[in-house]
């Protein structure tokens, strides 16, 4: 099934053309890549366009609270071993952005698509995916998003009738709950450092027991499924018991987990783990994330962390003290306007690092760090924060819009 061999209907063609025109206008006006506005225009002209664009592609969907952009990129690289891939690589992950990405893939074999958690069930219905990768679910932007367990319930209902192979994290009870209604699941032991959204059994509400890496509900017996793939240290264990070394340019345990899931997805399309993993090594940064940027005689590593689980994984990958750390937090629309999540993050883990605090909500961070008992310095700007650090590596951790601000300052 290679490429879009059947022509689109005249209506769909018109929709794609109108979408491209709108995107071009948006770009010319300096308002971003135009993929979202282009997709919106196209979908308005042809509401079934997403389904039609997808019907000639082998579609993989990727959803999660954290890691979906990176994993989408890793899977795309792996599948390129077999054929052309179209992907929403820049993270435009709602239906309009997805439509726009697919419209650019007329001669591709695969579509690897990141999907916003809230839209997964709908997109999965529209595009008839071959595979769906589910990484993790945790609290994120609670002032506007659905409650985390409700999201898992929504996934569960939406996926129960899907014919796709679900590749799901056995270590996240909410993901297991969401995936276990599907007939065809490949379980991956990908780990999940953050546990505070899943102490309560998603099935019956009992208290989960968590001996070691295992988990089981003491009341109803809902438990961790036996995984067929696993991340084990720096290796992927495949279902045949072979282990493959993970070599990535991307840092951290979370990205090894993303690579493990990606290897399992690639295998379901016949790409061998060693081939998939070799190709993943080529990924150095994803939409600016993990990039190390030379700026004012320093090497600034740009790390995006949007919610407590993301911050926790990020703390575990930064260089040890005395590496300075810049923390940047905003609370604009795209970040969520509620900063209470700062109190779910264990900032005492940064003890020993020189800490600089910037962003619209630096005073919230200042109080948080004061209560955590770690030293910090509040700065008025990124430039000022960098100037107070000695030459060398700086770890900069920022939430969504703060990350974009930082990229602009350091010229990334």
């Amino acid at each position, binding site marked *: 099934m290679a490429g879009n061999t059947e022509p689109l209907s005249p209506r769909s063609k018109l929709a794609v053309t109108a979408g491209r025109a709108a995107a071009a206008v948006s770009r010319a006006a300096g308002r971003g890549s135009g993929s979202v506005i282009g997709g919106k225009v196209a979908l308005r002209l042809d509401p079934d366009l997403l389904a039609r664009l997808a019907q000639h592609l082998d579609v993989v969907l990727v959803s999660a609270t954290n890691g979906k952009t990176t994993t989408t990129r890793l899977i795309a690289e792996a599948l390129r071993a077999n054929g052309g891939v179209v992907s929403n690589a820049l993270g435009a992950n709602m239906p309009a952005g997805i439509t726009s990405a697919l419209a650019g893939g007329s001669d591709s074999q695969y579509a690897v698509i990141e999907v916003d958690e809230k839209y997964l069930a709908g997109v999965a219905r529209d595009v008839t995916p071959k595979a769906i990768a589910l990484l993790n679910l945790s*609290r994120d932007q*609670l*002032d*506007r998003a659905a*409650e*985390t*367990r*409700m999201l898992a319930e929504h996934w569960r209902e939406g996926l129960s009738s899907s014919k796709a192979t679900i590749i799901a994290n056995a270590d996240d009870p909410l993901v297991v709950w969401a995936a276990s209604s599907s007939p065809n699941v490949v379980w991956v032991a990908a780990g999940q450092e953050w546990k*505070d959204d899943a*102490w*309560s059994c998603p099935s019956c*509400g009992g*208290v989960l027991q968590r001996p070691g890496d295992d988990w089981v509900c*003491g009341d109803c017996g809902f438990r961790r499924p036996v995984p067929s793939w696993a991340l084990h240290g720096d290796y992927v264990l495949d279902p045949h018991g072979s282990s493959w070394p993970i070599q990535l340019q991307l840092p951290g345990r979370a990205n090894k987990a993303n690579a493990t899931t990606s290897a399992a997805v690639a295998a379901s399309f016949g790409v061998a783990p060693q081939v998939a993993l070799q190709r993943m090594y080529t990924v150095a940064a994803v939409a600016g994330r993990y990039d190390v940027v030379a700026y004012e005689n320093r090497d600034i590593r740009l790390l995006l962390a949007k919610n407590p689980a993301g911050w926790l994984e990020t703390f575990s990958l930064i260089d040890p003290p005395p590496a300075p750390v810049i923390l940047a937090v905003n609370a604009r629309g795209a970040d969520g*306007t*509620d*900063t*209470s*999540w*700062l*109190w*779910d993050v264990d900032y005492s883990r940064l003890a020993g690092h020189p800490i600089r605090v910037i962003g619209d909500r630096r*005073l*919230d961070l*200042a*109080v*948080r760090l*004061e*209560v*955590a*008992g770690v030293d910090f310095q509040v700065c008025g700007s990124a430039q000022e924060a960098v100037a107070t650090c000695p030459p060398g590596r700086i770890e900069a951790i920022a939430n969504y819009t703060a990350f974009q601000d930082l990229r602009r300052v350091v010229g990334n």
Partner: protein
Amino acid sequence: MADTNLRLVWVYPDLLSTYGDQGNALVVERRAQQRGLAVERIDVRSDQAIPTSADIYLIGGGEDRPQRLAAERLRRDGGLNRAVDNGAIIFSVCAGYQIMGHEFVNDLGEREAGLGLLDVTSGRGGAERCVGDVLGDIDSRLGLPQLTGFENHQGVTQLGPTAQPLARVRFGHGNGTGDGTEGAWNDTVFGTYMHGPVLARNPLIADLLIKFALDVNALPAVDDRWYEALRAERIAAATQPA
């Protein structure tokens, strides 16, 4: 711990810890330690018994189903009511606040009994959630500066005759009754819709809880520079239209 001066219980973090509720425990703990107190903090999961002899109990916000489960388990346990009989102080937030009252509406749309520790009754409001910064004047008998907080709830809480409003809002919704009240208190039991780290924005409420627990009128001063800066910023933000 023989030399403990303050025993602090965080009730059911497995169910009611959605909006940074740990922050309230961290702030009380930190401010007590800064006054030279030895603090024992006990996090009690919902499959464990509530200790009845601690000084301060904190209970946070949560999603609808965990709220029902927490109410069921707290009623069955009975420890929180016994603790209040022993003179304990309770500071409750959002879903936890509703559980302190006579009843609330649970995730199944049914009326669910609370613990009856506050003379309040809660229901659901309209489709619109109350989300945003809040500014209010705290009951003058408590001798505290203005209340600043963030609310994110759909609840409506009516106060009965023996409950006092914790504050009157200038900006924001509070109890959602339209009468400008926010939260409730009676003797040693407090409730508020200001979720998550309301004590981080209002450290003098944390100090009040500690003073009640120690039965003292004053505490040594601590450096409140960053709290004051945050308060000033958020009070200004609450008065701006979004």
